[in-house]
């Protein structure tokens, strides 16, 4: 079996010991790699009822099957743990080079358990795995930490770390590597709860390839396909926010001012078509990405002079921009930089600030409590200020630091009505009132409101994808089975380690030949989708075991009650009836009970124990 190292490294921070276990082809055929491996480690490693911050929680990290190999956009790394934000098995995918580096060190996955006595970091160098003191790094930001560690261990090491937010157990804390983040579901806080500041890896081993020549040919072939597509040019020029104007104007589903509106009329200057030519000084890519959507965004003068980030992503333009009514791109960039440095998910952090701003608008909180003027008109000042307070858990920032669900409970006074989330996670940049299947996906996503577990925004916004055509985004009919299928599709994607921005190019049918060129293993399209189904069912079964059932999946009140007030999606909402119909259809398609529990027959069919 080429391509894989066949080894998983386990580090126990409590005992300070590490151990290695091997796996064979059967393991690969069941879980494939990346998300599959990470989910398997958490699923089998975390005892029932374990609190996310308990030392028994498992933090797993695994590079996808393509990680480390020249497959365009195939360098994604999966992290997984029981999430403190949602109480579910949550994974977060990042584009850092730490996954490939782990493979070069000789491991396909890393499993971290226990809790170190004091601030620590793990240093892995090929066979060596040691736990070192991180007293000097505690309190440092996500750029100082890798710089310090690279000076100590050599510039070629790869570093993943958390910021202050993760140390302070913010439930929206992220993990950072190479200025890229595993942002969602608070996995940075899991790392913080283990007193683990950073993971440093240096690998010098070779990765074997089954058919080297064929792999290089495939790489060139796919690169030509990318470059022939219009989106390659657009994404490379403008980044992921390229379609921001279109989502607003032509689809009317860009959540604005905490989802009170769905068109951001003041969007002109946060649109990449405005800022790309003015602020972007360079393209940035994740490991192995030949379709670089990353932009080095630099502010060279004015109040926010000195800001330099890998961004600004579409999601962040929404969360720190539109969702907060913030039309100032420099302020968005600064808030983005603060999120990165302090180690907070930009989506959750921005949505939480937007939520506080609506409470301010309604007089539920006042400047007396917040200490910052949270009026919409003051967004450019307020957003970065609030983010800084949140990351450091200072003042009102401490109230907001764990996301909208917890903040609403802390604030009370009916604040809950304005907390937009499912399962405790803040939603991404698509107003699902105008895309109902995507609304279902926000509910069924195992990690809470998410655009990437099913990626259903693409089929609904475009109207076609893969084997479907003529998809009506305003209809709730038939969405259940489609969302279930897309979730399986995405699990496969995260397991091979491909970026979801290339899912329209590779599709599932093209994956077997790439997998075979690397590993020599033959898979059919159906076998791969079955692996995807297995991974999703493991997450579903874990969540049901932890007591997260259908009643906990439901959409926030605003989606069900307040229709979109203006724009091309005006008047649309998801009714309670539509929500229930879609959920029923979904459970049936999954072979789960109507409460959202995988049946013993389904688990048996998929070989899940």
């Amino acid at each position: 079996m080429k391509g894989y190292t066949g080894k998983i490294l386990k580090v126990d921070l409590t005992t300070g010991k590490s151990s290695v276990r091997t796996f064979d082809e059967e393991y690969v055929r069941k879980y494939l790699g990346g998300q599959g491996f990470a989910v398997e480690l958490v699923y089998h490693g975390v005892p029932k009822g374990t609190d996310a911050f308990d030392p028994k929680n498992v933090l797993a990290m695994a590079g996808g099957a393509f990680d480390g190999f020249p497959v365009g956009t195939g360098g994604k790394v999966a992290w997984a743990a029981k999430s403190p934000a949602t109480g579910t098995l949550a994974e977060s995918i990042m584009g850092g080079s730490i996954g490939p580096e782990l493979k070069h060190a000789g491991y396909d996955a890393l499993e971290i358990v226990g809790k170190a006595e004091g601030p620590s970091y793990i240093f892995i160098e090929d066979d060596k795995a040691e736990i070192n003191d991180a007293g000097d790094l505690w309190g440092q930001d996500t750029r100082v930490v890798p710089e310090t560690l690279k000076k100590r261990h050599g510039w070629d090491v790869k570093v993943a770390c958390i910021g202050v937010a993760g140390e302070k157990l913010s439930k929206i804390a992220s993990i950072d590597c190479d200025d890229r983040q595993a942002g969602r579901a608070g996995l940075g806080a899991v790392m913080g709860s283990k007193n683990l500041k950073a993971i440093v890896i240096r690998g010098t081993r070779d990765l074997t390839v089954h058919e080297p020549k064929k792999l290089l040919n495939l790489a060139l072939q796919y690169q030509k396909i990318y470059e022939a597509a219009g989106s390659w040019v657009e994404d490379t020029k403008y980044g992921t926010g390229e379609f921001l104007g279109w989502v607003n104007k032509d689809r009317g589903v860009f959540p604005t001012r905490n989802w009170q509106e769905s068109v951001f009329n003041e969007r002109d200057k946060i649109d990449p078509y405005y800022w790309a030519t003015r602020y972007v000084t360079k393209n940035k890519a994740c490991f192995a990405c030949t379709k670089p959507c990353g932009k080095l965004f630099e502010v060279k003068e004015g109040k926010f002079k000195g800001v330099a980030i890998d961004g600004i992503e579409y999601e962040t333009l929404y969360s720190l921009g539109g969702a907060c009514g913030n039309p100032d791109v420099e302020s968005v960039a600064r808030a983005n930089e603060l999120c990165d440095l302090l180690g907070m998910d930009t989506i959750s952090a921005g949505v939480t600030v937007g939520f506080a701003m609506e409470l301010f608008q309604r007089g539920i909180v006042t400047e007396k409590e917040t200490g910052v003027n949270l009026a919409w008109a003051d967004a450019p000042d307020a957003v970065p200020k609030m983010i800084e307070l949140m990351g450091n858990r200072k003042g009102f920032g401490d109230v907001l630091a764990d996301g909208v669900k917890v903040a609403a409970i802390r604030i009370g006074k009916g604040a809950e009505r304005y907390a937009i989330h499912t399962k405790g996670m803040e939603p991404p940049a698509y107003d699902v009132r105008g895309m109902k299947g995507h609304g279902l996906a926000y509910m069924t996503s195992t990690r809470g409101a998410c655009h990437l577990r099913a990626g259903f925004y693409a089929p609904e916004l475009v109207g076609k994808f893969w084997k479907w055509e003529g998809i009506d985004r305003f209809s709730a009919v038939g969405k259940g089975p489609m969302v279930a299928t897309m979730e399986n599709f995405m699990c496969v994607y995260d397991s091979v380690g491909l970026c979801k921005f290339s899912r329209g190019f590779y599709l599932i049918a093209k994956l077997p030949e790439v997998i075979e060129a690397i590993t020599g293993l033959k898979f059919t399209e159906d076998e791969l989708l079955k692996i995807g189904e297995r991974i999703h069912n493991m997450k579903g079964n874990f969540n049901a075991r932890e007591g997260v059932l259908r009643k906990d999946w439901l959409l926030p009140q605003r989606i069900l009650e307040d229709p979109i007030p203006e724009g091309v999606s005006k008047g649309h909402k998801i009714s309670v009836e539509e929500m229930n119909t879609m959920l029923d259809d979904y459970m049936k398609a999954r072979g789960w009970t109507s409460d959202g529990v995988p049946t013993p027959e389904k688990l048996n069919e998929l070989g899940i124990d």
Partner: protein
Amino acid sequence: MVKMLVPYPENCTGCRFCEMACSIAHEGNVSHVNARLQVHRRNVKLDFPSVCTHCVSCGEDCCVLHCPVEAIKKKDGIVYVDQEECTACGTCVDVCPFDVMRLEDKAFNCDLCGGDPTCVKFCPMKAIVYEEPKPEKYEEINRLLSQEERT
């Protein structure tokens, strides 16, 4: 003038596709350690394809000058290691300013893939170009290298 690999750091995105393609083309497996070029990512602002320039830049030929057994030679502007004479002492690896002189059983460096460099073919951003080098380009590269903090 002989054509060389010329890096354009402003175009480099840090994807490291060139390293992987280089080592697969030469070794048949992926080895960043043995790739004949390295991509350096020092901070958010700098990604830098460090390629074997065969030292036309400053003309100092560190590896040629420092090899204690004179196993490193230059022909038609291209530096190569005489595999018969190399004693694998590693001096050239230590002195190479671009981190691209490599050592396994013997020392080796970029062979320009016989005139059709794999790294150039696989770079999606034209950050490495196979062309006749311009002197000012090398001044820029040397400046970048000297700015970098090295271990």
